[in-house]
Structures are given as structure tokens and as C-alpha cells.
């Protein structure tokens, strides 16, 4: 069983985001980047499947974008236990999902896989999720919002759960090879010591492959804006006691808190 995992970095939402001078994109100058949360789940699932008796290799692919640090991302994959890492194409800025899917499709013509795992979504996609876009390009079946990945012994099918609203879940059986958009992993993504990542960044082989060119999202971004938050909310400030006092008063107006016994 050979697994391919697609990963990327996204802006760290703990930092403030700003719009660029054109008003149609993010100002990338001061951004700091982190691995996209759902991709870490995808990698963890691949490693678990490999190590829980199914064997095979885990190959991680990321686009060669100049923002952030792709080498660190891929070295982290190796530190966690991936067998092989590949940087695909070369992009000044993170491309749209359609372009990313086209680039991965090019590269995957040269990589063997039985199962491709992606994060279910990423916070920066505007034109849809790469998983199903890539799957359709490769003529593979795909399932999004997946948990509970279980491989059949004969390795020709996989069983997964797809999550819906209200905690309802569909179980599907998919014929391999297939693409899955991973929502969460069975276990918290494993930790890789920073020292090991640093070392691998110096010594490990990060392969490069060509990919990309010309797909485009077909979307024209007219404007980007930071929505006003708190314009409708009444903001409460003060020290914790003053804040507690005010919230207690708001609640007690509604008969909630000390005034009511349940």
C-alpha cells in the first residue's frame, strides 16, 4: 500500500491579517505560516495505516511556494516518519486550488499510489478543495470530510466515514486508488522534535518535480476585506471582576444565575 499525502502551509490566524494595496489579496509581507491543521491529520492517518499492518510507503507532496517554508514543512513530515518527500513546481505565491490540483496531477503521473490523503479543506481556499479537484483530473473516486479510514485486507478497497450535520455519518466503501479529504485522525498528530527537523533540513533529500501551468480558478477577485467584528456586539471592558459583574447583570436580567435555582 503506497500512500500519498498532500500538505501545505497557511497563514497563522493567531497573527493579524492585512489586505494588500490592491485590495484583492492578503498582504504577505509580515505573515507567519503554519502547517494546515487538517493536513497534519491526513499525514497522521497515513502513518498509522502504514504502521498498523498495511505496510508500504508514505510520500508527502507540497507545492514549491516561496512564501513560508516548504522545506521545513517537508522535513517535519520526514521527522514524523514519512518515507519520501517531494516539492512540486515553483510558485511565487500560493496558487489557487485548481492550479494546485493541476500541478499535483502532473507530479503524480510519476509517483505510485494506492491512496491519496489530503486535508479536508484549508483556510485559504476560495475555489474549492484540492482533493476532489485532483481526483477528478486523475479520474479517481473521492470522499470529503472523512474519518475512520479502514483498509480491506486485500488492499483493493477502503471503508470510510463521511460526516454530515447533527453527528450523522455515512459509511462508504471506495475502490482503490482513491482520494480522501481527511477531517480528523484517530490520534493526535505525532510530535517531531525541532532539533530533528533542523537536522533533516540540512541532511535529508527533498526531491523536486515539475508541475503546474495555466489551470487557473476562473474566478476574478473584485475585492477582499476584513469584516467588521464587534460592530453589532456591545463590548464589555474592565478588570475581570467588573466584567463578571456586567455579565452577571445581563444574565440575571434574563433570570439566569444566582436568581434561579434549577
Amino acid at each position, binding site marked *: 500500500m503506497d500512500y500519498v499525502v498532500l500538505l501545505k502551509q497557511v497563514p497563522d*490566524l493567531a497573527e493579524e491579517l492585512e489586505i494588500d494595496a490592491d485590495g484583492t489579496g492578503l498582504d504577505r509581507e509580515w505573515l507567519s505560516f503554519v502547517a494546515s491543521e487538517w493536513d497534519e491529520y491526513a499525514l497522521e492517518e497515513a502513518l498509522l495505516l502504514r504502521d498498523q499492518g498495511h505496510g508500504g510507503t508514505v510520500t508527502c507532496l507540497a507545492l514549491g511556494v516561496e512564501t513560508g517554508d516548504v522545506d521545513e514543512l517537508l522535513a517535519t513530515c520526514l521527522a514524523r516518519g514519512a518515507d519520501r518527500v517531494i516539492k512540486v513546481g515553483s510558485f511565487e505565491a500560493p496558487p489557487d486550488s485548481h492550479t494546485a490540483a493541476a500541478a499535483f496531477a502532473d507530479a503524480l503521473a510519476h509517483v505510485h499510489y494506492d491512496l491519496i490523503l489530503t486535508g479536508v479543506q484549508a483556510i485559504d481556499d476560495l*475555489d474549492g478543495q484540492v482533493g476532489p479537484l485532483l481526483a477528478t483530473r486523475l479520474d479517481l473516486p473521492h470522499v*470529503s470530510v472523512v474519518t475512520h479510514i479502514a483498509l480491506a485486507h486485500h488492499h483493493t478497497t477502503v471503508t470510510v466515514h463521511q460526516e454530515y450535520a*447533527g453527528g450523522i*455519518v455515512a459509511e*462508504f466503501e471506495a475502490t482503490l486508488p*482513491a482520494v480522501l479529504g481527511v477531517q480528523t485522525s484517530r490520534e493526535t498528530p505525532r510530535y517531531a522534535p525541532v532539533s530533528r527537523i533542523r537536522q533533516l533540513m540540512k541532511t535529508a533529500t527533498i526531491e523536486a518535480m515539475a508541475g503546474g501551468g495555466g489551470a487557473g480558478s476562473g474566478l476574478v477577485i473584485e475585492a477582499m476585506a476584513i469584516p467588521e467584528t464587534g460592530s453589532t456586539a456591545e463590548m*464589555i471592558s474592565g478588570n*475581570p471582576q467588573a*466584567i463578571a459583574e456586567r455579565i452577571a447583570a445581563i444574565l440575571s436580567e434574563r433570570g439566569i444565575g444566582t436568581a434561579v435555582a434549577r
Partner: protein
Amino acid sequence: MSGDIVVIAEHRDGAILDPTYELLGRARSLAAASGGEAIAVLLGSGVAGLAGSLGAAARVIVVDGPGLASFSPTAYQAALVPLVREREPALVLIANSGSGMDVAAGLSAALDLPLAAYAIDLTIDAGGPLATCQLYAGKIQAKVRFAGGRGIVTAVAGSFPAEAGMGPGSPVIETVAPAATDDRIRFVDLLRPEAGDVDITRESVLVSVGRGIGEQENIELVEALAAALGGAVSSSRPIADLGWLPRTRQGGKSGLKVKPRVYLALGISGAPEHLEGMRGAELIIAVNSDARAPIFSVAHYGVVADLLDVVPALTARVGG
């Protein structure tokens, strides 16, 4: 190209789901602007009876076949690709649900039609369709158009009123067989959530906690506050994923939809998937250390502070 607005209907257990009505309501007004029809496409097996629930559409296309008895990403895609290709609607509207993500991106790639994802608004003006989409977990909004004037839109649940799509009517009903089938993904079973110790959909006070809680041991702090308020503790998804609270306490897109009298959002950023499950609460009070957290755009009262300071103070105040 026609001016038609197609809505892919989502249904489960013999009922049309709310997000479909939300889209259908918007499709009616968009169709009026584009000079086309609001068309609902209903896929299933023996589902003709459900077409009657889509009275707000001008036309319902029922795609009926044994391979469509339950949702399957491949079966839906195989059936929809030729249909959308042939009818050339101006817009295809799809709920941004688990199944909707598969259908929308699959159609976009197969038909080379642009896709605007996570839309919270959609209008048509002289320049054609204009979608407002959420990015960066709700921290940015983008207004986008389709280069060729037509495309696919997935909408965040709750973006449009469902009532507008629920009206009675007598749509033209066309029944067709799927033009193609693809059984590479086979439906096995529908699993329903087990009941939890507490039913958060019935609580009138929810003290809801997100990743801002920091450590598992801090859950005690919110348990104490909930007890003091006579309410229950609920959570965002990561807290359930971490196993710090049972899955049955999770509110949101893949959790439960809650509508309590009071919802205290503590250390919850307010990602679209979370808002989807709780924005209907009567009173929302949010505590978050980030003044730009999207939760403040749905809150009635907001506090920019460390929840680890506010929660004990509030517990002492109401419990004292």
C-alpha cells in the same frame, strides 16, 4: 448558456434538508434577475414524491435510478456532469456540506466551471453573478465573479433564510434516468449519533468552550461556571477531537445545532463551521483574547480578555 439557476437538492430520511431550502429561496430571486428558471435537481431512487416539497422551484428535475438510492460522490458526479453540461445553467448552487463539497469540486473539475466556495452572499447585477465568500476561518471576505459569467457556488449553511425556499407551488416535474453511473464509491450504512449524558440541544444555558481553554485540566473551570449558571458545557470541534469532552457536546456543522437562551462562547474563534451550529442562540456572549475573532460578529456582548481570568471571576460572582 441559459439564465437558469440550478439547486442540487440534499435529502435524508425522506426529507429535504434546510440548506436546500436556503439555496432555493435565493435561486428564485437570482432567476428573476437572470431571466431564467429556479430549477431543483433531485437525485435518488423512488424520490418523485419528494419533488412536491420543492414547490418554490419553477422546475424539478428528478434523476431517478437504483444507483442513486443513497448519496455517493461518484454516482452523483456521474449523473450530474452530463446534466449540467447539457442544460448550461448560469449558476449551480450547492450546500457546503460533507456531500456538497464532493459534488461541487467534482463538477467544477469535470466541467471546467469555476467554483466559488464558502459563499455567504450571492447576487446578480449587470456584471453577472457576484459571490461574497469567507476565507481564513471567517477573518476575510472576498467578492468574486466568474470569468465566463457562469459557475458553481457552495454556500455556508444559514446564509439565506430557508422560509423563502419553502413556499408552495406547482413546479414542472421532469423525471430522467441518470445518463451515467459510477459505483466506485458505494454507500454502506448511515450511522446515527448515540445519545449523550446531556442533550445540548435542549439546554437553555450553554457554556461553550473552544481551543482557547488551553489545557484539559481547565475544563473544570467551565464545568464549575455551567453548574453555577444551571447550564451545561458544550464545545467547538477541536475540544471533542482532543477527547476533552464527549462528541455529543460539540456544536456546529458536523456537531449539533443549538439554540439556547444564552450561549457563552469561551475561547472559540467563530469559524464558519462553528457559527453554523449556534448563531441562532437568543443571546451570545463571547470571551476571546483576539479582538478580531469572527465570533464577535455574531455575539451580542463581547469581551476581549483571557477566559482564564474571566471564567473564575464570573463563577465566583454568580455562584457566590
